[in-house]
């Protein structure tokens, strides 16, 4: 980091009054211009400014758009729960899936949502281990997105069993002593998935909460209302900012990041096992685990951008979530999007090179069969759209980035639809072939899951700091005791 070059002229003078004895003059050569980086917090904002800007969002009354947005989201969520009630009371037949396509929108939606969550963990854990300081501005909201996405994902596999009480209670999914004396079948990847997804949801929640503790203490100390002070006080556990606590906290946070990294890689690998361990042509491929993980991160970053760009504009957080942050996320989209594109190509190559006629047929059918439109929608959104981000001009055009991020979301939903439905609808015997069409219940249950997601996200920005106050401060020069803005006066301790 080009520290010396980033100091404004006044800062050195400001630090002067801390001078007890004049330091020896030290000449440090200016770093070359290409090594200079844009600061992570723009306009040299003070520590208090950062607290006020972020805590202010959840302290001041919400802007006018919040209530209509909340009512629409909550209504959509209500629609989803009504449709689930309708499904449970009637039967899974209210959805369009049937032999041979006995997985369709349900599992598509599940993989779609769980994939979105992966970006949050990547930002909070992997970028933490890689010491990417820019993560601090976006990790809180991205982790929240992870948890809400996992909540949306969890609904579909549970509901698709139809008689959900069998799935949940007497030990089919969760090991639980029951009157039938049976246990879950641990040789099935579907059960591995149950453990992977529930561990993922739980650990993400723990990691998110650990990160929130110091910020809740900040909100507690600023709270003017009794109830707020009590609740923030309760959940901040009496945090004081003691360095003896920080010492353990920093270690715990690093360990949680170290645990979440292999976790996030395992979760989507195991999700891909749901398909890859089966023998269905189009599913039975070894490329699935890395390809699913890359796709998950790609889709998640798409969703992070879709959420973060409006949030930063609506709450005036341009100095904390800067254009540089958006640009860096676009680069992640470009990298993971390229991996996804490569995987699509490699799948086709192996289908031909592997010499299995069923496999080759499955892939030809994907691109040119009755579901050709979904395959080419996927290719357009996932393979073509990220390549706009080779150009800095487009990466820094926020409106353009937002539009492309929406394409990524759509494309990644289609990817899962293509994998699931096109592989199933042509069975081995032509007499068993079919064509899946969703019913209105399919469509509105999926739409409703966005209602749940948005409701949770709106509540989150209403009550919790959407950006980590503590971590953003820690990457400013004011936090560095060896930086003039941190009060350093030139001599070493």
């Amino acid at each position, binding site marked *: 980091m080009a520290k010396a070059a980033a100091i404004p002229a006044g800062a050195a003078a400001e630090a002067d009054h*801390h001078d007890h004895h004049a330091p020896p003059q030290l000449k440090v050569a200016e770093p070359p211009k290409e090594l200079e980086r844009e600061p992570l917090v723009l306009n040299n904002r*003070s*520590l*208090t400014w950062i*607290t006020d800007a972020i805590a202010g969002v959840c302290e001041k009354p919400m802007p006018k758009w919040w209530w209509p947005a909340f009512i629409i989201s909550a209504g959509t969520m209500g629609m989803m729960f009504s449709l689930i009630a309708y499904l449970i009371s009637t039967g899974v037949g209210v959805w369009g899936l049937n032999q041979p396509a006995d997985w369709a929108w349900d599992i598509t939606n599940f993989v779609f949502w769980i994939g979105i969550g992966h970006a949050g963990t990547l930002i909070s854990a992997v970028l933490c281990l890689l010491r990417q300081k820019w993560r601090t501005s976006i990790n809180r909201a991205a982790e929240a997105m992870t948890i809400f996405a996992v909540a949306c994902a969890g609904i579909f596999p549970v509901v698709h069993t139809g008689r959900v009480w069998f799935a949940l209670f007497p030990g089919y999914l969760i*090991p639980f002593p029951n009157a039938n*004396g*049976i*246990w*879950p*079948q*641990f*040789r*099935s990847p579907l*059960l*591995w998935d149950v*453990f992977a997804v529930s*561990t993922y949801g739980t*650990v993400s929640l*723990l*990691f998110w909460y650990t990160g929130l503790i*110091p910020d809740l*203490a*900040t909100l507690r*100390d*600023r709270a003017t209302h009794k109830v707020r002070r009590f609740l923030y006080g*309760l959940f901040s*556990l*009496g*945090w*004081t*900012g*003691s*360095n*003896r606590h*920080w*010492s*353990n*906290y*920093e*270690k*715990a946070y690093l*360990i*949680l990041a170290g*645990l979440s990294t292999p976790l996030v890689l*395992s979760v989507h690998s*195991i999700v891909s*096992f749901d398909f890859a361990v089966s023998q269905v042509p189009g599913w039975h491929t070894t490329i699935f685990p890395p390809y699913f993980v890359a796709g998950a991160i790609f889709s998640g970053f798409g969703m992070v951008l879709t959420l973060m760009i409006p949030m930063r504009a609506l709450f005036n957080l341009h100095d904390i979530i800067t254009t540089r942050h958006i640009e860096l996320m676009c680069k992640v989209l470009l990298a993971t999007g390229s991996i996804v594109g490569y995987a699509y190509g490699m799948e086709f190559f192996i289908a031909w090179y592997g010499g299995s006629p069923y496999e080759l047929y499955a892939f030809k059918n994907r691109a040119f069969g009755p579901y050709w439109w979904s395959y080419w929608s996927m290719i357009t959104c996932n393979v073509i759209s990220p390549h706009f981000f080779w150009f800095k001009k487009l990466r820094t055009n926020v409106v353009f980035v937002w539009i492309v991020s929406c394409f990524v979301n759509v494309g990644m939903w289609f990817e899962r639809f293509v994998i699931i439905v096109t592989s199933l609808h042509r069975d081995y015997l032509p007499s068993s072939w079919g064509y899946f069409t969703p019913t209105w219940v399919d469509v509105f249950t999926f739409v409703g899951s966005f209602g749940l997601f948005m409701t949770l996200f709106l509540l989150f920005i209403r009550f919790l700091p959407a950006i980590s106050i*503590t971590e953003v*401060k*820690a990457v400013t020069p*004011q*936090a*560095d*005791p060896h930086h003039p803005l*941190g*009060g*350093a*006066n030139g001599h070493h*301790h």
Partner: protein
Amino acid sequence: MSAKPLGLLAQFETAADIMHAAIAVRDAGFKKWDVFTPFPIHGMDDAMALPSSKVGYFTFAGGITGFFTGMTMIWFMNKFDYPLVVGGKPLFTPLYAFPVSYELTILLSAFGTLFGLALLNRLPKLHNPLFASERFKRAMNDKFFVFVETADPKFSETETRALLEKLGASAIEEIQDTKD
């Protein structure tokens, strides 16, 4: 209610000042003291001569428990208690038991870490005499504090105050025991 003095709380304005103060207080030989900052300051653990955190041991204990719970549970359920051949696969092998055991390793490691964090930090602790200080409300905002306890054998009302003043504290206040 008896107001018993608990210690002196000194406020500092910058990260460099608090670092400087921490080193001086450590060198003066104090043991029962602490530094309060709105964010972790890099190098402060060394400045305070704190040992490396022990959270990792809790993580390890959690992880080991998780892994062996997974393996034992799967062996018990699928081989011992209700053996059922599925697809000609073996009743038990660590290979198919691995994904679930792996997830349980991570799950219990995470719980172990958080449990260790709470235990080592003695949290939750909702009542704290420091919260009575109006100044301390900025400890999680933009100010930096040193707190030296009267319980420290080296503590002296006048000398400790003089030391903190010399270090450039912008304010010093006495913290009382607020317990009834």
